[in-house]
């Protein structure tokens, strides 16, 4: 469990992280989303005791990182996969970390095996590809078998196999009851990996919800249905339009796009009217769309300006009056 309370980081005149408060709970994958420069990495570095917060605190299992006695056994972190001395072998890099935390050396070979680096373990880390560096970074995070994982852009530079591997690994770790906090700018990947989302923009918290709620909030109920028979289709459309707030668009091929109704509701209705359906599906908004909708409401990164920092556009007029 990671606890972040009023975490703030100021660089000169700019607030990189502005009063963040959220929890990262055990047993699920929490995705950390935000545009470049939103303060994701700074927040992670403060959680790991590398950067000093200007205000507020970040605790791991109730304690600041600096107070952890064997930190690698409490938190596994991967920040910048390339941050390894290039002349040192991958194994030597891990051995040094293991020694400093009283981790048995056989664990080093175990994690190297687990991430698929056993063959390259004795080569200098400077000769590793980006993907191999990423695997070494993951090996370092897993070294102490920690209950908490903090991973900054772990899929960066990995090939499709590696991306799938990370996804499986991260889900597995959460299923074992660990706390997983993961940042990524790859929305499709995040949608497949995370259960819960913490979204920030300009250093502020924009959202802290489950993935399902986040997607649901961004998209009203909508579904697509294919009704082969034109008469039945017309009948179904008439019945659908009797309700308020429902709109229907029909394509030439006979596909209906219904907003304001779920696939289940349309299926029930079709059943009652004895209308044959060939296909029926909910229209799901992608995480990318939901995320863009949310961040579009905070102005800076859409206009690049500094004029307004209000969140929702409709709310802006209310606040304008003071």
């Amino acid at each position: 469990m990671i606890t972040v309370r009023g975490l703030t980081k100021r660089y000169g005149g700019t607030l990189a992280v502005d009063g963040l408060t959220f929890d990262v709970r055990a047993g699920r994958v929490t995705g950390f989303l935000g545009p470049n420069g939103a303060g994701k990495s700074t927040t992670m570095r403060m959680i790991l005791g590398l950067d000093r917060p200007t205000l507020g605190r970040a605790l791991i299992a109730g304690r600041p990182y600096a107070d952890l006695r064997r930190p690698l056994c409490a938190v596994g972190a991967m920040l910048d996969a390339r941050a390894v001395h290039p002349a040192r072998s991958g194994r030597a890099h891990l051995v040094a970390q293991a020694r400093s935390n009283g981790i048995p050396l056989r664990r080093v070979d175990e994690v190297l095996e687990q991430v698929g680096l056993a063959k390259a373990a004795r080569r200098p880390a400077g000769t590793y590809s980006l993907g191999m560096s990423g695997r070494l970074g993951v090996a370092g995070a897993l070294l102490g078998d920690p209950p908490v994982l903090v991973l900054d852009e772990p899929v960066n530079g990995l090939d499709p196999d590696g991306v799938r591997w990370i996804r499986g690994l991260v889900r597995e770790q959460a299923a074992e009851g660990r706390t997983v906090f993961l940042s990524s700018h790859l929305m499709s990947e995040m949608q497949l990996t995370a259960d819960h989302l913490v979204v920030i923009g300009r250093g502020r918290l924009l959202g802290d919800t489950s993935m399902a709620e986040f997607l649901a909030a961004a998209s009203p109920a909508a579904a697509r249905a294919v009704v082969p028979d034109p008469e039945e289709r017309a009948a179904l459309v008439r019945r659908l339009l009797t309700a308020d707030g429902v709109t229907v668009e029909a394509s030439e091929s006979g596909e209906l796009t219904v907003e304001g109704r779920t696939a289940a509701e349309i299926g029930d209705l079709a059943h009652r009217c004895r209308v044959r359906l060939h296909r029926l599906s909910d229209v799901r908004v992608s995480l990318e769309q939901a995320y863009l909708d949310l961040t579009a409401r905070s102005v800076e990164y859409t206009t690049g300006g500094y004029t307004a920092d209000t969140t929702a556009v409709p709310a802006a007029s209310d606040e304008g009056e003071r």
Partner: protein
Amino acid sequence: MQPAGNAAASSAVLVQFTVVVLATVAVTSEYATGSVRAALLSVPRRSRVHAAKALVVAVVAFVAGAAFAVVGTAVAWFGFDGRASFSVGLSLRQVLAIGLYEALVAVLSVGVAFATRHPAGALSILATLLWALPSILLGLGGPTLAGLNGRLPHGAGERFMRPAAEAPYGSVTAVLIVAAWAAAAHVIGLYVLRRRDT
């Protein structure tokens, strides 16, 4: 006749350059590659990381300095061919003194390197302190400036590596002066390591 070990002690001014560069790079390379983050994640207590670095580099510098002193004394003894004196006791003392001086210079360099994080900055400061200032002070001459030079690390180091009768203070004081410089740099380096983001 001078003791043969004085030759080795005199060239410590050059040998220390190796120690300074080695000790500086031992710290700044961690910042250049980013591996300092792995170190601080493994051992979040800054004082331990800093002390460990200083200790390792000091031991290496002591061994290297002492080995250099042995070789230097031997070369001088043969080179001077009877025009230098040799006694086991004094030579051993000088070998240990040179090792100690290089070890303290290493600690000083580690502190400066942690404070600056970049090799150029660290080496500029160390070159000024260990070479430029002494040359200027001794070059301009006069008892005041020479006395001031005696309070700088290398000036004080000379006093205990190459003991002379006319020294204004004893070997122990000389060691303490160099140790004080090393301690001051260590404290400053630790302060920066604690305060600044990594």
